[in-house]
């Protein structure tokens, strides 16, 4: 009974916290099927158009599919930006797989002069916010002639330091004896990397990809700085462009933009937990 009571006592606040954490998603979901006038009547005080307190209903009083129809049939710019986001995300993930994974393997399994210093640089760069490196990135991209192109966002993301850091942890966990055995069997370093390193460290790779995917979906600073042409903007920059008078449409667009993230999270939840746990392990 004590255990049961304890569980209940623990579950109640946890459930409350969970509801509180999920409430923005519920806000999006219900707002998707609300008319603009109904939304305005609820959140008018927040927008300064009404007096009193803002309220919200979990069930719309007058449900409507107008926002969904407008989004799906009458908003080609939304889909254009969605595919921009998809291009950026795929480019960054591909770049991470191409460059980040071998870099993490090298740092984890090989000893070479300056390894620690390079690793320290990785840690240092990982801790620096975008605002610190923004100017140097801008100058480099400008010199390369990549400003106002999607490569200006893809390349810095492809060479981001955080995913290799996650993968490094997992690669460090591979037993050395397994590698030695493969060497004894005549496997080369590249074969060891592809046959042992990637399969065994797939958890770390996937978790890094998941985290990077979520990062790319919400990327707003790099596109706003490096992309001037609206045609190249990702979805994260489009949503703020929607006016408050189109609140229902904005909520619907936000919910649709959330679906890929939800799917990716559900797919890689297990690996994500492993990745977060791995970052907590001190070397």
């Amino acid at each position, binding site marked *: 009974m004590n255990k049961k009571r304890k569980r209940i006592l623990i579950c109640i606040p946890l459930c409350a916290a969970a509801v509180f954490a999920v409430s923005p998603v519920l806000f999006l979901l219900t707002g998707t099927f609300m008319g603009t006038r109904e939304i305005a009547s609820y959140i008018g005080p927040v927008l300064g158009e009404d007096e009193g307190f803002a309220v919200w209903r979990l069930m719309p009083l007058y449900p409507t599919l107008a926002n969904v129809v407008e989004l*799906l*049939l*009458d*908003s*080609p*710019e*939304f*889909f*254009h*930006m*969605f*595919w921009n986001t*998809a291009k950026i995300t795929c480019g960054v993930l591909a770049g991470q797989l191409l460059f980040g994974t071998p870099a993490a393997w090298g740092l984890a399994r090989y000893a070479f002069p300056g390894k620690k210093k390079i690793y320290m640089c990785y840690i240092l760069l990982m801790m620096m916010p975008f605002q610190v490196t923004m100017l140097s990135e801008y100058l480099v991209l400008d010199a390369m002639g990549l400003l106002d192109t999607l490569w200006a966002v893809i390349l810095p993301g492809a060479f981001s330091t955080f995913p290799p850091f996650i993968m490094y942890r997992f690669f460090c966990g591979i037993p050395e004896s397994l590698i030695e055995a493969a060497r004894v069997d005549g496997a080369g370093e590249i074969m060891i990397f592809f046959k042992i390193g990637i399969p065994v460290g797939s958890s770390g790779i996937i978790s890094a990809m998941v985290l990077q995917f979520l990062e790319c979906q919400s990327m707003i600073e790099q596109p706003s700085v490096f992309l001037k*042409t*609206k*045609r190249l*903007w990702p979805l994260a920059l*489009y949503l703020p462009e929607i006016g408050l008078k189109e609140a229902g449409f904005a909520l619907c667009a936000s919910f649709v933009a959330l*679906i*890929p993230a939800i*799917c*990716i999270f*559900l*797919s*890689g*939840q*297990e690996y994500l937990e492993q990745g977060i746990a791995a970052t907590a392990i001190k070397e």
Partner: protein
Amino acid sequence: MRENRAMRIYAARILAWFFVIMFLFTAVSRVTASFTVARVVVENPSSRRISHVVIADGIVEKNQEFAVVCEQGLLVKTVYVSMGQRVAAGDVLAEIDMRQLEEQIDLVREEIHILELTNQDAAAVQNKNAEDAAVNLARAKQDYEQIAADMDVAVARAAEALQSAKDAYYGFEDTIRAGAEYENIFVELAAREAAMKAAQEAYDDAVRDQSAAKKNAARAVEDAGASQPDDHSIEIGKLQIGQKQRILGRLQELSDAGGKITAPVESIVTGIAVETGQKTSDTAAVTLADLSSGMRFVVKIAKPDAGYVSAGDEVTLIKNGNRFSGFFIDTIKSCEDGSLDASVLLNDASFTIGESATMEISKQQAASQTTVSRNALCQDNTAWFVYVLDKKDTVLGEQYFVRRVDVRVKDKNGSYAALEDGVLAADEMIVSDSDRYIEAGSRVRLQKP
């Protein structure tokens, strides 16, 4: 583990389907956007003169009309013309029955004679009345003088008698005062006083009678000398004789012409008031349109075009596809409803009275620097405006949007409109046509004209 794997596979499938759906709706949204986006034709403001062509239908009418009159009461033997017939000077319009005309002439002559005799009788009566009046006056005067003389004598006698009575009375008083003695003094005195009173009364009566007699005699003289009321019967008679003589003259002229009523000038018959076998009335027998004074093309200009027409404007008349130029607006009259009644003087033999034609006036205003096609001009309750094309950088690339610009219209016709300068730049693109309804802020696509 199995559950996690199943969840991963399920989530992956949802993601895959999500991308498929997004791909499909990407295409669908592009297609629907292409349907809803209006296609517009644009133009640049240009410099142009606004011309106004006023076209109106009218009819050719007579310029001057006159009446051919005939004496009333004559029997019409024959009518030789019909409505709209063109006649030359001297052409016979109608013929009067000669026998009845001669009878009419004789009748008038007799009437004149009767009037003359009547006048003579009236003159004789007037003379006699004058003589009688003079005689009566003379007699009245004589009577007055006689009466005055007689009355004077009577008054004089009464005055003498009165004086005698007074002398007798006052003398007797003096005698008494002097001390004379008389018997019955008082009786004597009373008798003399009574006599004096009687004489006084007789004198007063005489004077009164004199006044009355004179007054009556004077009245008689006045009555005899009073003027007689004016008698104009002789003058009236003379006037009537004059009228009859004029009628006689006209009848005689008509008789000399053989009873034929002719046209005095070349003209067109516009009205016939006589009929064969009927008698003429007091109105004109025939009305004619004088061709020597030309014709007139009359037309009504509608109110919207009234501002572009003025007297002296050159016009072109179109009849049966043929164009006749060189005419000018002669008169213009404003009507209450804002329209105009205009007329053009015609001296062209190509036109005949009663014909219909179309009038065309073309006027060009001063050149305007900012002119757009009429289709580009829009109007709402407040003002005139045009839609200007703006290029904007959007998510889907460079797109065109329309912006409303209020303008002031200086002049316009059916094809172009002249706007006030300074509002539109020469390189701005103005929407002149659209295949859909557009409003300010609408996204549009350019369509080649």
